[in-house]
């Protein structure tokens, strides 16, 4: 997991995008994170994280279709790329690896 470093908040945002895949726009990601983690998140922080992720090539974005829901304006929908998925898996694997490395005596 040398390549791109994934920050903690970036990881959360990336996960949220994955959860809402197909419908991951800024506000949706915020709502998702707030619901999952029960903490309030700034829209600005999310957008900036999305920007960084896009620069790293971990997410891509495209303009969604016109819906009546948002006054006829278009959303920018994010989706996790293959690299993004791999990054998430790497993080998870490292975590798992580390969990398993904890000796049994540690908790007692």
């Amino acid at each position: 997991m040398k390549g791109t470093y994934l920050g903690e908040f970036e990881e959360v945002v990336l996960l949220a995008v994955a959860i809402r895949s197909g419908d991951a726009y800024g506000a949706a990601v915020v709502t998702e994170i707030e619901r999952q983690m029960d903490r309030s998140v700034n829209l600005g922080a999310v957008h900036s994280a999305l920007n960084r992720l896009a620069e790293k090539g971990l997410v891509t974005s495209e303009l969604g279709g016109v819906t009546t829901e948002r006054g006829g304006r278009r959303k920018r929908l994010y989706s996790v790329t293959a690299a993004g998925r791999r990054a998430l898996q790497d993080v998870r694997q490292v975590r798992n690896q580390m969990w398993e490395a904890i000796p049994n005596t540690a908790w007692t």
Partner: protein
Amino acid sequence: MNLYPPRLATRLLHLFCAPHRVDELEDDLDELFQQRVKQIGLQKARWRYVKDVVSLMRPSLMKRQPTNAYPNPATTTMLRNYLKIAFRNLVKNKTYSSINIGGLALGIAVSLLILLFVIHERTYDHFHANADRIFRVYSKMKFGEQEMQSERVSARFGLAVQEANAGVLDMVRVATTPGRVVIKTSPERKFFEDKFILADPSFLTVFSFPLVDGSAQTALLRPMTVLLTERTAERYFGHEDPVGKTITYNNKLRFEVTGVLKNPPSNSTVQFDFVASLKSHPAIERIQNQFIKDDEVALLNQRVQGGSFRTYFLLNSSADTGRILRTLPGLVKASGGDMQGTRYIIDPLTSVHLGMNFGDTANSRYLTIFLGIAALILLLALINYMSLTTARATQRAREVGVRKVMGAGRSELAGQFYGESMLITGLAFLLALVLVKVLRPPFYQLLQLDIDPSFMYTPEFGLAALGLLITCVLLSGSYPAVLLSSFSPVNVLKGNLTTGKGGPAVRRVFTVIQFTVSIGLIGCSMLIYQQVQHLQNRKLGLYKDRVLVLPVDASLTQQYSILKHDLRQIPGVERVAAASSVLYKEGGSIFFTQSPTTKKDISIHVLSVDDQFAETLQIPWKSKPDPTRLAAPNTVVLNEIAVRKMGIGNQPLGQRLSFGSEKSEVVGVMRNFYFTDINDSNEPLALFVAKDTASAMATFGGSLYIRIQPSADLQQTVGRIETAYHQINAEKPFEYYFLDQTFNSIYKSEARLASLFSVFTGFALFIACLGLFGLAAFTAEQRTKEIGVRKVLGASVASIVTLLSKDFIKLVLLALVIASPISWWAMNKWLQDFAYKIDIAWWVFALAGGLTIGIALLTVSFQSIKAALMNPVKSLRSE
């Protein structure tokens, strides 16, 4: 219930956020807001909204990033299109483009060169940090009816003024050496120097002449110390460090080098190669006169009066000059002097250079003329550009039509053509800069100017060049832009527009202006040349053609007779005489003497000569003195004017005149001959004649006049003279003048004007012809079909050439009619200043006109013959 988010925050978002992201962000905010209203209530939702907006204020979201998804086509695309079209046009019409750019570049280059010279003259002495506070003093003295000007005052003068006025912050006295000196460091390194000055230590602080080596505090303090300029240091010491070494002055004095100064800029009135401490002045004075008493030394003179020191003051403000002048009479009186008939003037250093209007290049009137010529040449080049561009308008008419149909407004089209002019002018300007670099050395050589090469990089010149560029761009673009953008699209696209209305008429006016200027300049340059020739060839009353002048000095006193004898033995040398100065080069001394009859003071030039002088220079006598009296002591010979001015015309011989302390008897009268370098007319002259064998001439530093036989080989004879000179082991380097050359150099500034005029006339004519060539080529091209039809119907080549050339020749004739009176008037005005002048002959203008018509015909016929010889099958086949 108000379910809207805070408006202020929304507006803030729009203000800072990148436009392409703002919608999306606002939507997100909106959606979150609506959710939160339900979850946490309106107040808190609004608060969160504001917090979110603030959190969005980060650079990554503010960055305006017009991604390809939202292109902004209006500006850049059209600009790119304009540029592309402009380049295609340039490349497609190579001839026109090169004529256009080349002509313009030449015009700009010439104007830049002249501008460089003019700015150099106008910024004299502006480089001093204290430039606006440095003042110099000079005096005007009345002697009888004559007023003399002197910029030298006594040593005490500056000190006294400084002591008496608090406004005088500092003072510098500068002295020069009497004539040229020989400086030596080693037998091989021995040169004549004429820029050896002596100055107070304040020289280094009042003026801005920086030291490269040595200390400004101690330099120039001790007697017999000297500072060298960098160039001089290299001449005498090569790459060695000169500080601490010594130089020998006239083989008598030794100066210790205490520092090295930067070379003075070429636009400085104070010029020097050596700056010795002023305290060395008495030593130099003693070489001249060994018997001088201590209290007679100029540096110790306690009187406030005229003297031998140029004096500069550093004032608190320019207002102090009035106060100083008011205290002066008191100072003069207190020192025991007398101010009668003398007026002192204090003026700023920066006004000195252009103020002395008798100099040669420093002639402010000629500066205006030069500027005028520069403007004319630039005008020619610009007109050229405009007429060629508009002539080409038909080629662009269709483009203009299409653009208009597609919705281009007039202002956009005008902008496009302005832009094209800007591009071409810019290219021309770059080329002009290259030309300036190349042409600068020969140009300055022609004008005999000495301008530092680094002057090109000063901000003054940069600004002027920029101004010139802007003027060119504004002018060159204006007319084409207006004309080209005025085409009516309907007419153009129907194809029934040949040239814009008024276009040909304006071009005719342009051509007439160009040739008026050219003919005027040709006329003027011919007249100036004639006048210079006239001045140089006039009868001087003496023989000057093959006379070599050889200055000698005191070191020759011993061998003087031997040298004269040796010279006379040389085959090819006809006669040898001596006089106290080099005629036309060194101003002799002027005495005042009282007329024995009218009792009026007359200023009279004085020349010491030997008894061979009149014969050698073939000056005729009016009343020849008795040979026994000629070189007798206390006798004098006058010229006719002197006799007339003194009012002793009836009986000049035997009159006794006093010169200084001695009385001399008039023993002979010479015909007038021309001898000064200042005035146009003859002046009174008194000749003190000495025996041929007297060596006094050498003691006081005179010159030998060697007349060379008309049949002798000049170079060979000069070589023999040099050999003879070296045989006597003279201390002074061998240096000589030819009398006719020194005479001609009096009219340096006129001769310079003449050569300048002819060169620029050449440029002007060339530029005008370039334009004519372009226009002729264009007309011929336009009338290809007509010529084809005419040829098919039987027209001869000659008749077609006439047809094509006629129009142009008419214009040139019109130009001749306009130019002649104007240049006649201008030259008449110029000639007013000469006492000795030519009459303006009508044929000069006829010749100028004829010459121009000839050149114009040649230019046009090249194109018209080409057109006339074309095979009609080819020209009619197409379409």
